[in-house]
């Protein structure tokens, strides 16, 4: 059994209790108006790392919770859950976003790229490899978000200066303070990626 499977097994009682409580909250009748879905689960299809995934989720479920709790794609991390820290960063339609603050239902029909999808077989993506080379992590919890933010930044700015790399990562926090290593890693990755090794 995986560590995650074990944790989930232990936690399931609490989770079910929480859901029950929320469902009991009385909802007054919403205004008249037009076509709506929910509040109960609705069919949702997400295109993640090139593969379609069919889910049945309430409209309130975020993309981050869909990835982590329903698809076992746990690379994107849940830290602040309020669009501030960047640990949940994924790329949607070519742009970096905070997956904690996107509804899964809104991410349908878009190409979603997560940390799980950027390696080729056993070969690390140049950004991940550069993070290893520059020791650009300590506890590692912010790392998947930073790697995705750095990849999204380099996709748009293939030849950045150190200052541009610094500004390009302004949406992510590392409480261990490994920023210097990360900026160097971004510059190294930009050289690697231009070399076409990972084109």
């Amino acid at each position, binding site marked *: 059994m995986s560590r995650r499977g074990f944790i989930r097994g232990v936690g399931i009682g609490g989770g079910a209790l929480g859901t029950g409580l*929320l*469902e009991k*909250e009385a*909802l*007054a*009748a*919403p*205004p008249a*108006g*037009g*076509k*709506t*879905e*929910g*509040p*109960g689960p*609705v069919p949702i299809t997400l295109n993640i790392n090139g593969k379609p995934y069919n889910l049945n989720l*309430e*409209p*309130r479920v*975020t993309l981050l919770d869909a990835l982590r709790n329903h698809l076992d794609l746990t690379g994107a991390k849940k830290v602040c*859950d*309020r*669009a*501030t820290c*960047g640990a949940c*960063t994924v790329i949607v339609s070519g*742009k*970096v*976003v*905070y997956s*904690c*603050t*996107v*509804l899964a*239902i*809104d991410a349908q029909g878009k190409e979603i790229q997560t940390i799980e999808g950027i390696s080729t077989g056993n070969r690390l993506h140049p950004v991940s490899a550069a993070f290893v080379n520059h020791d650009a992590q300590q506890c590692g919890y912010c790392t998947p978000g930073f790697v995705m*933010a750095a990849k*999204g*930044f380099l996709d748009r700015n293939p030849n950045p200066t150190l200052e541009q790399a*610094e*500004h*390009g990562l*302004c*949406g992510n*926090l590392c409480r261990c303070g490994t920023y210097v290593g990360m900026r160097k890693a971004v510059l190294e990755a930009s050289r690697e990626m231009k070399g076409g090794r990972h084109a």
Partner: protein
Amino acid sequence: MQAFEYANPATIQEAVALLGSRWGEADVLAGGTDQISLMKEYLHTPQRVVNIKNIKELGGIHRAGGNLRIGATVTLDELMENAEVRRAFPSLHQAAEGVSSPQIRNMGTVGGDLCQRPRCWYYRNGCGLLAMKDGRSLVPDGENKYHAIFGNSGPAYFVSASSLGPALVALGAKVKLVSASGSREVAVEKFFVTPQNEQSREIALLPNELLTEILVPLAPTHNATYEVRQKEALDWPLAAASVALKMKGSTVASARVVLGHVAPTPWPAAQADQALAGKAITAETAEEAAKAAVAGATPLSQNGYKVQLARVAVKRALLQAARGRA
């Protein structure tokens, strides 16, 4: 987050038909950068959420008559990268750039920047918009280092969180508000209001209205925004100033100086406008105008430092505008 029913209209007409007549019935979802956090904190518990990102009419930036028309769902990134905005409105470009997180700029919209709720920590922690307890606001005797230094005679002490608001007021922009029964245009200056009671909002938008576009007059001005920040990474400014100068030769024909993050609304500094009329922008005249801009400040117990920051913001915005192009 409380469960809600979700609507995904394709037109403005469909969207406004889905809105309620009272706050709390239906909330509009654009970039979600504030809305989703508000729902997670149970500060907003709408029964219905109306996604407006798939309404094509709400996107795009183009010239319309004498205005630049900016759709409400244009993202901050699209605003910042737009060639016309860069050319004519550096103050808007700089204000969007100040929202330093690429993720927020990719998600957050221009309409959302104007409609976001205040960042006041009393409000965000469930004390209500005015933080009232036993008939008195908690702010004047409480933790008020980020609160208002203007327009703070009560009951509101929070500061407007909008990054684009001050620049849009300085440029004389309007917003278009559409409901099922019609539409109206409101000057951005009048769109921001100081609420007088806990039930009212800090913007003039009604629960059954949708902000659809922003109209910025293309009259040539020298304009700039300068934000004073605690750090370069994602955060709201401590104080900011946006200026728009109509020039006659090398002197100012008329000026609009508007402070940000110092009052419950973007705060026009008319005394600075008067101080600049007929003068060339130099370090001395900019300093004089900056002093005039903060002359009426009434700081609270912990935020006197913001007076100096606002003064510096005005001076630097003026010098930046004078260096920039018309």
